[in-house]
Structure formats: C-alpha cells, structure tokens
C-alpha cells in the first residue's frame, strides 16, 4: 500500500514526464498492434492459399483394386496427408468435358479414354512443407502402379517464402518495437529515479532496504505501462473498431476478408503492464542504492 501511495504521489509530482512517457508507450504499443495485425493476416491469407494445394498421383491403367487399396493405404499413413480421393478414368474425362464444354468439338472422334485414373491428395495445413511434399512425391512415384506424380512445387515454395518472409520481418519489427517501448519505460524510470535522488538518499539513510526504495518505482513503471496500454486500447478500438470495421471497410473490399482477432483489442493492457514492469526492473537493477 505504501509503495502504491508513494508511486502515485511520485507520478503526480512528475506528471509531464509521465504523460510524455505514457503517450510514447501508447503510440509504440499501437504500432506494435498494427504490425501484429498485419503479420496475423498475412499468415492467414498464406494458410488459405495452402488449403488450395493438392498433389495428383496418376495411376497406371492396369492397376488392380488390391494395388489401388495398398497405394491409398500407404499414402494415408503419411501424417501430413489430410484426405485422399480417387478419381477414375471416366470421372476424369467427365470433369474435363465439363470444364471444356465450350470446346466440346475437341472430344469428337476421340477413340476411348486417354486420361489416366488418379488420386488427389490434400494436406494438413501445419504439416505442409515443400521438402516433405517433394519427399512424399518421390516415395509415391516409386510405388507400384504409379505413372506420375504432379504438384505445384513452385507454388508451394512461393507460399513458404511468403510465410517465412512475413514471419521474419514481422518478428524483427515487433522485437525492435518492443525494445523501443521497453527503452521508453526504462529511461523514464531511470530519469524519475535520478530526479528523486535526494528522496532516495534520505530513505536509504533512514534504513530503507533496496526493495523498499525500488518498490514505488516498480509500481510507477508498471502503472506507466498500463496507462500506455490503456491509451493503445483506446486507439485500437477507435481505429480498428470505427474506421476499419465501420464505414471504411465497405469501400475497401480487401478489408472485408481480413480477420480482427480479439487479442488486438485486449492485449495492450497486459503487454503495457509487462513492458512497464520489465523496463522498471531493468532500470532499477542497474542502479546501486
């Protein structure tokens, strides 16, 4: 209680420095959220693209029912595989005719069915890696009754590059911002500490231990972070809630497909508290009392 009272008194005494810090922390956290939101949606779109990915295994015409069952079983045994669908020769031709119904003359005079039967494989999103797909394709190709295996290797690599790039850039940007906001808290607490050096010295001379002296500054740092978080929350509600989800979203179509995860609305508070406390802890840890 004593620490909280001292912290509040101290904050009021240095209100302008504190206000400036709260604004900096609030703006920093808001930018951090925008970055998180962007990375989150990039990941989301990339994973949606992954859902479209499939691998097609073309089968020999002479494959037996037993051979087909064995092949399907072997493919399903792979943990990365989500579904396996068999497409018969007739079904394949039917699909092709349906897709090319405007060019039906192409099929006139067609002698028999030149298309092979096939198996379409879809993958679990989290297990889909281009190297794993390449390895699976190689293994399936070596199986009896398989004519060829085709999949969008370049497409998959492209998605992977987008995801990895977005994640790396996002993490680097987030880390830089986090360090920036942390530094604001660290510097503020350090400045406040030195501005109250006389008070600190008096407390020490009266017999106060290190943590009795540090506690109000820790509380102060945490409250600064929390206030910054509250400001970021307010900005998030205003900007995301009003601007994006409101009228603006209807005029910019891409916004309609974006996800607004709940955490961006409540995360600034615990994040601010954590950053404020950590910044203060680092600042005080480096000060000898």
């Amino acid at each position, binding site marked *: *209680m004593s620490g909280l009272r001292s912290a509040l*008194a101290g904050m009021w*005494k240095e209100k302008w420095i504190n206000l400036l810090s709260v604004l900096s922390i609030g703006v920093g956290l808001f930018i951090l959220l925008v970055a998180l939101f962007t990375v989150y949606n990039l990941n989301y779109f990339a994973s949606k693209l992954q859902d479209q990915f499939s691998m097609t295994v073309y089968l020999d015409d002479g494959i037996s029912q037993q051979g087909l069952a064995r092949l399907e079983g072997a493919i399903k045994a792979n943990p990365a595989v989500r579904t396996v669908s068999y497409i018969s020769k007739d079904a394949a031709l039917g699909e092709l005719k349906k897709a090319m119904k405007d060019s039906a003359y192409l099929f006139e005079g067609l002698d028999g069915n030149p298309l092979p039967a096939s198996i379409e494989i879809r993958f679990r999103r989290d297990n889909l890696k281009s190297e794993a797909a390449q390895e699976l394709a190689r293994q399936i190709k070596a199986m009896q009754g398989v004519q060829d295996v085709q999949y969008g290797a370049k497409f998959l690599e492209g998605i992977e590059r987008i995801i990895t790039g977005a994640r790396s850039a996002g993490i680097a940007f987030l880390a830089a911002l986090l360090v920036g906001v942390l530094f604001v808290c660290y510097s503020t607490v350090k400045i406040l500490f030195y501005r109250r050096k006389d008070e600190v010295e008096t*407390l020490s*001379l*009266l*017999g*106060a231990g*290190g943590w*009795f002296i540090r506690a109000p500054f820790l509380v102060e740092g945490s409250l600064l972070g929390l206030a910054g978080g509250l400001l970021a929350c307010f900005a998030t509600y205003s900007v995301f809630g009003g601007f994006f989800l409101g009228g603006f979203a209807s005029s910019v179509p891409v916004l309609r497909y974006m996800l607004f995860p709940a955490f961006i609305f409540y995360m600034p508070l615990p994040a601010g508290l954590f950053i404020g406390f950590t910044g203060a802890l680092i600042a005080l840890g480096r000060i000898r009392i």
Partner: protein
Amino acid sequence: MVRFEGVIKTYENQQALTGVTFQAARGELLFFTGASGAGKSTLLKLIYRAIDPDGGSISVNGIETSSMKAGHVPGLRRMIGVVFQDFRLLSGRSIYDNVALALRIRGVAERALKTQVMEVLKMVGLRHKADSWPETLSGGEQQRAVIARAIVAEPVLLLADEPTGNLDPDTSAGVMRIFKDINARGTTVLIATHNRDLYTGTGRRVLKLAGGRIETEAAG
C-alpha cells in the same frame, strides 16, 4: 554503545579525522563540540555508515560496522535515529507521512503506526501539524518534525547533527528538553553542536574535536 578506535577519515587530500578514539556508554547523553570543519558531522556520519572510514574500527551496539557489508547497513541504520543537520524532510509528503516513514521502513503495519506517530507528534508539539507539508512549517517546527521521525521507532541510539543550528534560544531549549526526555527513557543520545548553551550546565560529557582528533574531554 558506540566505540571508536583510531578512526581515520580523509576527504580527497584533507584529513577530517586523524585517529579518533572514544566510547559512549549505553544510555549516555554525549556532546561533540568544536569549530566548523572540526569533524563532528563526519564522526556522526561514520556511525550510521553514510560514509566509510579509511582506518580504525567502529562498533555500534556491539556490532563492528567499519567492515560491515553494504547489505547489512540498512539494518544498522534501523537501529539508529538520526536528526540530520539539513532536516531531510521529504517534500510532497505530510508531516504525518514523513514521521510514519520511519515505521514503514521497519515494516510496522499501517493500523499500528498511527497511534505511535500521533503520540510522538504530540510529544514534540506538532500534533496539530500532522497534515501540513514540510514547506509550510517554520525552521523550529521542521526541526521538531525531524526529531519526531528520528525517535518514533524508539531507536537504541539517537544522533543529532547541529539540532539547534537554525533555532532561537527558546526553541533550542525546547529541543534539548526532548533529547533529555528520550535519553531518560534509556536511548543513548549523541549530539554534535557548536552551541555552547546546549551543553553548559548539563553535567554531561563533552568531547571537543579539533584538527581531526578529540582535543579535550570535559563535563558540560
């Protein structure tokens, strides 16, 4: 209670104490006197380890403090009440809070400390000023507030550095009465002063410092 043996303290190139040796018995009221710069404040600061000695040995309440680790210094200071020459009252906190601070530092619960603080404020005649800010008090009142803070936790040793430096004779006499009362309760009191009136006629030991050592010892 306090024992100095050959204590030396040097500030840069100037020797403040050049081998001070004395003992203050438990329950004693002892004065240190001497001209400005004689080393009175240095001597008191060495007792509560605001500064470290450059030589010799100091013990307080049977504890050797000259070689004490930094982590144990707060514990030593909590045994001692100090009336600072420059008051060191915290601005932005009421007189009540300033006095209560000494108890909060010692971990006394909020409910328990109120009675103690109000009692000690009454003792120094500042009960009616409990909610006032230090800046609004006169020099004499501030001095009494500092005394209240120094004695509220009933320390075994009370140190006062020029406690009447800024006070008129009547207020000085009032402050001296408080010290005698505290001493009568068993607290050892060490007072550094150049105010002759404070110790004359008390019959207490007066150690005169000059040139960084104790020059004479006499009864006040």
